[in-house]
């Protein structure tokens, strides 16, 4: 450990890389190279010095100044006790990362134990004892593995971004560096794992010469699964921005966590358009970002919310330090249940919609697979929360797998949401941008699209692919003369449009509401997503909660029955369950807090299931209007006024009452019950307050005595709320 860098020198990190400078081609040379870049030959895979290197691999990179020490580069690690490299199984201490033979331990272990294991030296050190590590016998130097060198910054790691051969025959690679926590400005944070690395945004070109060998940097999921990959395994969850010294989660990591769909369509289009299929798209993005940040000073700063400035501006956002609560938090069962019930957590499989999925698959396949691709329309309708969009997206994802496998013709996919367009005409622009990547005004986009779909002109050089257009919230595209809808549904009928339109909306008879020429074009093929019944809802919830013991069986059934009876909205059902879990969690934590302060007794863990009561409370919360509560706690005269309104309602039989009449009633009620007489203007004020909360409906106050008022809730609710009011017992007489 001769040159451990102090973590407190921020400038060091970027400048450190310039040590490599002799190895990188100097700038003038590079520029020349760029000009005749044709002569460079790029590779995806390269066999160099006996190793196979691929784009996206992680490698150790030699530092030039300790090049002499790389002659002894042990692939395997020595045991810390006997200092031999044996073939027998070794175990790794989770604290100091030292390796031990199972047989060398005292007492020897039979097999690798489950969970964390800490060696006796570390245990002793933690207890505060002085520890004497066994030293190797004389004449044998303690050899350090590449991993140890890396973690003490004597060696670097990098990810290969591209590989090429220069015209002069040397091999080069562009790489993104990894840094160890000590090299960041924040230093090693207490929650950092021993094997943790950060991916930086720093890119540089190095020669293949300096590459040592492979290492394996994994994302958290892979890392958790890896158990026998050897010593060169590292953990990487965050990206470190060398310019702003800030951390950010790696986007791919978050994405792969649950096969997320947002933005996938975009990626996909690119990967189809670009010829190198295997290049991961997010890498591509990152590279451009990285290039941006490599410039020391941007020529002019761009506004972050404008189109061009976005990438650059957003790069600034990052945490200076990774908060501890994110890493150290171990979720309990309830919390895991909550996160599974989130609307965002998309399930791996989609239960209960197999029939509809088949139908959509058939529809798209039927349209695409025939040699001459026919334009078609499909209209999907169903109440909110029945999984319409999700089903379509899942189908398209499955089809994409088939396309990748070569079983289907490639096609492009455009998704538009009617509610997210600022005006219906903008849909042309969005479609054109998605197809070609250019931005034009909507009128021009309409012209181009017209040519494209009706005459079959080509956008790019190659032949047009079939295009699947998914329009969510279709009813929002309605304009006065319905021209937008007409155009969209007219294109598929053109002979070589190759356009397939899938429209999604809520109402069943939407096509019939349009002009006949539109409904005749779109209304041929329809698919209905019925509301879920309670078994389906139950299946959905249970499929999400598989393996988590947090809910009682009946509780789920109760929730799903309740929702199925009301709306059949899956989102609603999930929310209710989440709400109930939250309530249970809240209760549990309050309990823990109070018991900690009084008795410090440990609660029986895991015995807190979400029960019927919680679901009941959540359902009540969702479906119940809060007016009764407000009536109960409202002021004295508002109560009297409400009672008078009910009284008046029964007396006259009319639901409406003018303010003048109401005021006289109130005054007579007050005088007969020896109550203070309220003034007219006070009553008016009270009436306005009630009207504001929409407990009563009233006209504007300027009409004064002629203002008409009406109860907004059934009179029984008022009677229920005010029946046994302790302050004004006489009210119940009039209810």
């Amino acid at each position, binding site marked *: 450990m001769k040159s451990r860098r102090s973590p407190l020198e921020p400038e060091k990190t970027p400048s450190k890389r310039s040590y490599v400078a002799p190895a990188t081609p100097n700038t003038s040379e590079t520029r020349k190279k760029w000009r005749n870049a044709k002569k460079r030959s790029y590779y995806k895979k390269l066999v160099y010095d006996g190793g196979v290197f691929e784009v996206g691999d992680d490698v150790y990179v030699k530092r030039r100044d300790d090049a002499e020490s790389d002659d002894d580069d042990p692939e395997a690690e020595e045991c810390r006790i006997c200092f031999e490299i044996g073939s027998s199984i070794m175990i790794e201490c989770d604290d100091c990362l030292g390796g031990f033979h199972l047989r060398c331990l005292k007492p020897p272990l039979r097999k690798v134990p489950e969970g964390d294991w800490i060696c006796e030296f570390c245990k002793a050190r933690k207890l505060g004892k002085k520890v004497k590590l066994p030293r190797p016998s004389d004449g044998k130097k303690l050899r350090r593995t590449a991993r140890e060198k890396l973690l003490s910054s004597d060696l670097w790691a990098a990810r290969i971004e591209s590989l090429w051969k220069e015209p002069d025959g040397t091999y080069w690679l562009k790489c993104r560096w990894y840094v160890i926590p000590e090299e960041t400005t924040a230093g090693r944070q207490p929650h950092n794992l021993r094997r943790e690395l950060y991916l930086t945004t720093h890119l540089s070109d190095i020669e293949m010469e300096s590459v040592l060998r492979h290492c394996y940097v994994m994302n958290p999921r892979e890392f958790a699964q890896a158990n026998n990959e050897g010593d060169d395994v590292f953990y990487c969850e965050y990206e470190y921005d060398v310019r702003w010294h800030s951390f950010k989660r790696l986007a791919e990591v978050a994405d792969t966590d649950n096969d997320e769909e947002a933005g996938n369509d975009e990626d996909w289009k690119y990967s189809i358009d670009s010829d190198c299929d295997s290049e991961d798209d997010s890498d591509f993005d990152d590279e451009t970002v990285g290039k941006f940040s490599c410039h020391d000073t941007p020529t002019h700063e761009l506004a972050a919310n404008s189109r061009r400035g976005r990438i650059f501006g957003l790069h600034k956002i990052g945490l200076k330090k990774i908060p501890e609560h994110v890493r150290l938090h171990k979720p309990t069962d309830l919390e895991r249940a909550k996160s599974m019930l989130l609307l965002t957590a998309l399930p791996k499989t989609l239960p209960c919609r197999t029939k509809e999925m088949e139908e959509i698959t058939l529809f798209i396949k039927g349209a695409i697979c025939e040699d001459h691709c026919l334009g078609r329309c499909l209209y999907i309708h169903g109440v909110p929360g029945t999984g319409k969009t999700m089903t379509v997206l899942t189908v398209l994802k499955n089809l994409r797998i088939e396309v990748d496998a070569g079983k289907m013709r490639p096609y492009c996919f455009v998704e538009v949401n009617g509610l*997210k367009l600022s005006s219906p005409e903008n849909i042309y622009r969005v479609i054109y941008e998605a197809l070609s990547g250019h931005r034009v005004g909507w009128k021009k986009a309409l012209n181009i699209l017209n040519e494209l779909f009706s005459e079959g002109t080509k956008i790019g050089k190659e032949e047009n692919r079939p295009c699947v257009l998914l329009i969510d919230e279709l009813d929002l595209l309605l304009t006065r003369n319905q021209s937008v809808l007409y155009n969209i549904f007219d294109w598929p009928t053109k002979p070589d449009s190759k356009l397939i339109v899938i429209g999604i909306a809520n109402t069943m008879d939407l096509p019939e509401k349009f002009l006949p020429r539109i409904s005749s074009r779109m209304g041929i093929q329809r698919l209905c997503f019925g509301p879920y019944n309670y078994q389906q809802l139950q299946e959905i919830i249970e499929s999400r909660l598989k393996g988590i013991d947090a809910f009682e069986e009946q509780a789920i059934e109760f929730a799903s029955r309740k929702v199925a009876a009301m709306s059949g909205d899956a989102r609603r059902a999930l929310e209710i369950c989440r709400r109930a879990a939250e309530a249970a969690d809240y209760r549990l934590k309050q309990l823990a807090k109070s018991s900690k302060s009084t008795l410090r007794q440990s609660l029986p863990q895991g015995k807190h299931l979400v029960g019927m009561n919680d679901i009941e409370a959540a359902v009540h919360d969702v479906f119940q209007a809060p007016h009764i509560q407000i009536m109960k706690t409202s002021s004295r005269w508002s109560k009297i006024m409400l009672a008078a309104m009910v009284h008046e309602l029964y007396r006259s039989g009319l639901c409406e009452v003018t303010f003048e009449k109401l005021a006289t009633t109130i005054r007579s009620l007050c005088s007969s019950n020896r109550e203070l007489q309220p003034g007219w203007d006070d009553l008016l004020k009270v009436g306005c307050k009630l009207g504001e909360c929409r407990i009563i409906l009233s006209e504007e106050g300027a009409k004064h005595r002629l203002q008409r008022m009406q109860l907004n809730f059934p009179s029984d609710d008022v009677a229920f709320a005010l029946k046994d009011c302790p302050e004004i017992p006489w009210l119940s007489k009039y209810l």
Partner: protein
Amino acid sequence: MASEKALDFLRRRLCDSSFVYSAFKSTPAGNYSKLKFLISNTITEACNNSVLLLGPRGCGKGAVVDMILEELKGEFPEIISVVRLNGLLHSDDNFAVKEIARQLCMEHKLLFSKMASSDDNSQFMIDMLRECGLAHKMIIFVLDEFDLFTQGKQRLLYSLLDAMQTLTSQSVVIGISFRLDADQLLEKRVRSRFSHRKLLFTPLSTEDMQSFDVKPKNILGDKKFKEILDVLSSVDNTISNICRFLYHAISWMHFESGLLTLDGFKNALSCMQRQPMLDKLQDASILEFYILVCMNRLGSREQNSFNFNSIMKEYKAIQDAYKTSDNYSWSVCLRAFEHLIERELISFLDNRMRSLSIEYRPVRLLLSSQELYQGLKSNAFCPAILLKLLNHESYR
């Protein structure tokens, strides 16, 4: 000097919402702890949430949100960024998105351009949500006057709530509204995406109110003071109303002794309970009273629509019958009539017949007969005949 200082101190306290509403913090089952639990849980578990705070005005909805945000900012520095929108200002979707972009730029010290289109802005918002989610940062949207965002197509709410359906984003939408049916105003697709958490804020009950008033201890025990408070709370029992009352009362503080007196509280109460209609009647002229009484007589005769001419006819009939000294010419009466319209004691029946001259347009009386009676009685110069005329008709 000491009394001035005390006055200053009291005023500052009453205006400081975090002191006034601090009582919320102590109750464990209250909205404060629930909302705080919700938001801090959202931070630690990296998920999205949406919640509606409902309750009449002046119950401390906004104050509780402010206090919680303040506290959480201390607990999780750098993590929280708050975007505040008000329905009165930002109910237009495009403008609201722009405002969101502006506030996010401010918060993260980015350059903001006014020229960006609304598409760009909404794209920026979504990107920002994603980036912040990746950096474990949380965006809290506080939508005040939530009910006003539900006008139109609700594109803003839809895109906000829909953006929250991606895993990478981390945000909370807090809606504040005094309309109890605010969640019913949401369009069905928006409602389906909304997570239906509602926290209800209720006004204080009387016991709460007494515990709330700990400062002027010297008078609290007084029975009269209790009466005053009762009267006050029978109209409006929200916290902000009481604060306003106390503020008034403090300004009546007795300077020599430096004590708050009962008279001060009484004065404050009368300040709070202004009766604008009666006040308007206070300084009306005799002729105006005549006109009002005539209108009342016409109205009680089930004559629904009347204009200046029919009022004049009635007025003339009264003058002929009783031969009072208050016989004025037609044009003087018209001026008095116009004056009454300006003071909104009477108003036109509708705005339709603008082309008609004033004397032919139908009018209506905005005062009830009881109010008019009270007004007449409290006016010292009012001739007895007027009271009689009024009484004669309205059996009082």
